[in-house]
């Protein structure tokens, strides 16, 4: 009996120790989650921010620079009582804000660092350093600055990431900056660089205990790559000046490459306003401006193209062989079939060259009807779809796939659209407005500039883009080297080019105001009817006629006739770009443009 009890006790003791051993085996060897938990306890990842890549214009001028900036941090437990008013004055914030932010930091954690004030300037930082207040320190960030103060919408702005972005993309952490719009957003992955990290160890109170593994796992930040933008800063500035006070857009493209030379939107804003501590206020101000300065009209506005679109219809007619350069159509103040389309006073009958030169409406009504009522397609519906395909090959109604985010497709109607709209009861007369670029057509100023480039190239284009070089790469995206042919053969372009040349250079030409001696400007005016007041003044042109260097489109909302504002502006742009100056005889034109007052009361409603 005694021996039994001795054995029981010994077995009991050994069993308990075996259970403890088994539990230890499980905790220490089998279950690996505790290693991770211990690391989470102890490691703090301190982000080292890279400086963001800078942006140059096509002539190597800085248009976006990175500027040093400092975030004021505090570790509340280290802070001793200090003169809040003096400090607030030194760093240029209201005392109440400083106190409020500090209390917020205390609530978050007394032992961990919090950002108190973001984006101190260098001067503020130096003044702060002299004070030497315990518990406060600054960390380096970089923010943007815009030495040329141009092209706000084109360049876009940089902002702090929001929760949605953090959830979508695991590169970003709270407090990171990201390009929100424009180039900053489109080239975010190039510009942002790579964050570095410094791994610190902390104790239970969150107080740093030095770096982990002597910094073996720390990484340095890699600065963002700079890019060269195809924008000509000086030209851009000139364009912005010309359109000041007007609502509209100028886009210029280098036809041989598709590089965008300028992209003006007015009203515009000083991009520096969206940097720094005043950003929030300024942003709201811009957002509440009824003329919508933050709206990138050049690639996002859906405008009727107006008469400049006649060129496209002429070209399709020639390709479809329903039109030859010699065919003449009568015009007695307009096209008289159906509801009719009015025209201004000019000689009759006219051929293609003259119809382009004088912008005859009736002529293109005949052409349009011949295209879509072509017997070969059997019905107007088929015919319209063929027409649609042609138009899309000119880059209308499709995504051009530029290097811009949020580019608008515009709209080119198809038979389906009218079938729905008119319940299938429609004919070529119903859609006659398409012949003069009105009706359901919609396009962006960029697409119009691209049309000018296509005509100047005699039938092809390169995808428009604003970035010409990424500094550590040999080439930009391959899609920008790809030649896009329209469905119209090159030989058909000569008659319309002649017509556009004559519009600027000959008697009865609608665009004679765009004439610049020796530059061979070819242009087409447009006066786009619209439901929002006076007609839009539009113009597209390219120069010189052979070996074109620049293709421009100008769109001025409610500016009236194309020749009134758009044509002079475009010609000034062309002259400035090709000759680097404005000849003295044409200087009054600048003033003329600036003095044109347009009634924009429609925006203020």
């Amino acid at each position: 009996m005694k021996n039994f009890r001795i054995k029981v006790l010994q077995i009991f003791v050994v069993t308990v120790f075996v259970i403890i051993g088994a539990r230890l085996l499980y905790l220490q060897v089998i279950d690996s989650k505790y290693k991770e938990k211990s690391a989470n306890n102890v490691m703090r990842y301190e982000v080292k921010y890279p400086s963001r890549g800078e942006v140059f214009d096509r002539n190597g001028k800085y248009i976006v620079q990175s500027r040093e900036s400092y975030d004021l941090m505090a570790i509340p437990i280290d802070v001793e009582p200090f003169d809040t008013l003096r400090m607030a004055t030194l760093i240029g914030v209201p005392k109440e804000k400083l106190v409020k932010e500090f209390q917020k930091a205390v609530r978050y954690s007394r032992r961990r660092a919090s950002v108190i004030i973001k984006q101190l300037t260098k001067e503020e930082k130096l003044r702060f350093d002299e004070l030497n207040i315990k518990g406060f320190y600054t960390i380096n960030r970089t923010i943007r600055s815009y030495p040329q103060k141009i092209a706000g919408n084109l360049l876009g702005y940089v902002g702090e990431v929001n929760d949605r972005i953090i959830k979508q993309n695991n590169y970003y952490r709270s407090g990171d900056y990201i390009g929100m719009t424009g180039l900053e957003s489109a080239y975010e992955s190039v510009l942002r660089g790579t964050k570095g990290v410094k791994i610190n160890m902390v104790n239970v109170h969150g107080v740093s205990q030095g770096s982990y593994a002597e910094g073996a796992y720390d990484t340095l930040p890699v600065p963002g790559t700079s890019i060269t933008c195809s924008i000509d800063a000086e030209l851009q500035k000139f364009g912005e000046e010309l359109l000041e006070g007007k609502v509209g857009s100028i886009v210029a493209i280098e036809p041989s490459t598709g590089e965008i030379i300028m992209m003006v939107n007015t009203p515009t804003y000083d991009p520096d306003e969206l940097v720094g501590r005043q950003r929030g206020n300024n942003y709201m101000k811009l957002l509440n401006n009824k003329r919508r300065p933050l709206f990138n009209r050049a690639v996002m506005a859906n405008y009727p193209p107006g008469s400049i679109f006649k060129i496209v219809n002429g070209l399709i007619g020639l390709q479809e062989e329903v039109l030859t350069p010699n065919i003449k159509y009568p015009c007695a103040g307009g096209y008289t079939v159906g509801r009719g389309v009015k025209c201004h006073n000019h000689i009759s009958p006219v051929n293609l060259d003259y119809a382009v030169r004088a912008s005859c409406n009736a002529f293109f009504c005949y052409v349009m009807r011949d295209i879509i009522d072509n017997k070969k397609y059997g019905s107007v519906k088929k015919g319209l779809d063929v027409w649609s395909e042609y138009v899309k090959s000119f880059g209308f109604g499709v995504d051009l796939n530029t290097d811009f985010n949020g580019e608008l497709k515009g709209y080119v109607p198809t038979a389906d659209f009218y079938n729905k709209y008119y319940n299938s009861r429609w004919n070529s007369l119903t859609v006659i407005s398409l012949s003069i670029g009105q009706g359901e057509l919609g396009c962006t100023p960029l697409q119009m500039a691209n049309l000018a480039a296509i005509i100047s190239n005699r039938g092809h284009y390169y995808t428009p883009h604003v970035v010409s070089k990424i500094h550590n790469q040999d080439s930009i995206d391959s899609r920008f080297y790809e030649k896009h042919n329209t469905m119209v053969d090159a030989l058909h372009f000569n008659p319309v080019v002649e017509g556009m040349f004559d519009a600027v250079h000959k008697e009865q030409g609608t665009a004679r105001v765009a004439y610049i001696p020796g530059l061979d400007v070819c242009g087409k005016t447009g006066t786009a009817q619209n439901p929002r007041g006076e007609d839009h003044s539009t113009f597209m042109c390219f120069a010189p006629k052979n070996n074109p260097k620049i293709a421009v489109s100008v769109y001025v909302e409610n500016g009236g006739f194309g020749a009134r504002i758009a044509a002079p502006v475009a010609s000034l742009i062309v002259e400035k770009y090709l000759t680097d100056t404005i000849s003295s005889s044409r200087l009054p034109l600048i003033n003329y443009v600036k003095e044109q007052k347009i009634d924009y009361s429609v925006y203020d409603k």
Partner: protein
Amino acid sequence: MINRRDNSTLLGSIDWITILVYLLLVFMGWLNIYASVYDDTQSGIFDLGQRSGMQIVWMGICAVVGLVILLVDSRFYHVFAYPLYVASILLLIAVLIFGDEINGAKSWIMIGPVGFQPTELAKVTTSLAIARFMSYYGFSFHKFSDFIRVVLILGLPFCVVVMQNDMGSAIVYTSFLIVLYREGFTGYIYIAVALMITLFIVSFLITPVSVIILILLFCVVCEGIMNGCWREKIIYLSYIALLSIGIFLLSWTLFSGAISMVLAIEISILLSMGLVAIYAYRYRFKNITLFIVLLFSSITFVATIDYLFENVVQTHQQKRILDLLGVENDLRGWGYNVNQSKIAIGSGGLYGKGFLEGTQTKYKFVPEQSTDFIFCTVGEEWGFIGTIAVISLFCTLIIRLMKMGERQADSFGRIYCYSVASILFFHIFINIGMTIGLVPVIGIPLPFFSYGGSSLVAFTILLFIAIKMDLTKRESAI
């Protein structure tokens, strides 16, 4: 001749293995105390301002105490067992009145900056007293007067320590159950204790209805194993089921649910006693009695612990138990200590993070890391290899103490050795068990490891008296 004899008396016969294990444990404990309080600003391992330095002083005192014990005649402990016991009880009471309170327990005597806990010494004197009493000729658990005295000897220090609000140290006295078992205390008590612990745990993990059904099934099966007649069991269970559902539905319709399911089952069981009585009349009466006693005591027990747990057990003790059983999971509050402790030990892995490299302990994520949670440092810095080494040493020590006890010529020595083994075993099991989430948090030190003069000295005295007794026995055998 004389030299040889001298040699064998003091050095030759001494249990060197136990001494070696003791020295190893104390040394390892000291290293881990150093590691647990270590940070980069610390001046040195021997700095008296640090716990590692202070522990050196206590180790020196222990060396002296150990040597003195080995030199004192072992009959001294037999003779002075009662006076020492009485003195220690008086001391405990004195502390209760005049002592200082640290961490809620009024069990400290402060001599300058150095604290001392008489509770630790009381374990030694109680062991001696119980050994002395139970070793008298003719002692038997069957004699009621003997039994009640054993209860008194153990209960007195227990009660005083409870009054000092030091539950952890008080619970240690339950470890004497091991000694009592060795000395022939009835085995049923242990089965009952095991059942009670099981029932206690189970009652937290499952719903009251399940508990009562489980108890009923268990009792019926127990009775069935003894008596057979399974057909009657099935009839009985069906009767209970039908009756309780009937009562429940009746109360549902008549009193809109005034009687809960648990109560319904209890009423049915009560009503079924008539059936049981008839059954008992036809079969063996004694086994049926056991069935009834088991059934009713279990049901009463569950009801009682529910009441006690809610009304008597203190909040932090409730939380520690609920947390251990996974009923609550509050990692920032009550569960923080154990969670951080498990992280520390678990993150050690197979080989550990290395001496002084434990981030959990070095950066103070683990609370009480040099005292009650010292095992975390072992686990984190020395890994599974280290923890297995430590528990192997402990296991060796306890088995050796039991063997020592069996080697003793008289029952006084044997009972004392078993007492030492039991107390050490209890401390080790509870302390390590709590750091790895096997038992609820109970604040008692890990022998030889935890920082603290009183516990180190007390465990040294406890162990060395056993060694001395073993030595004396061998001496006389020569």
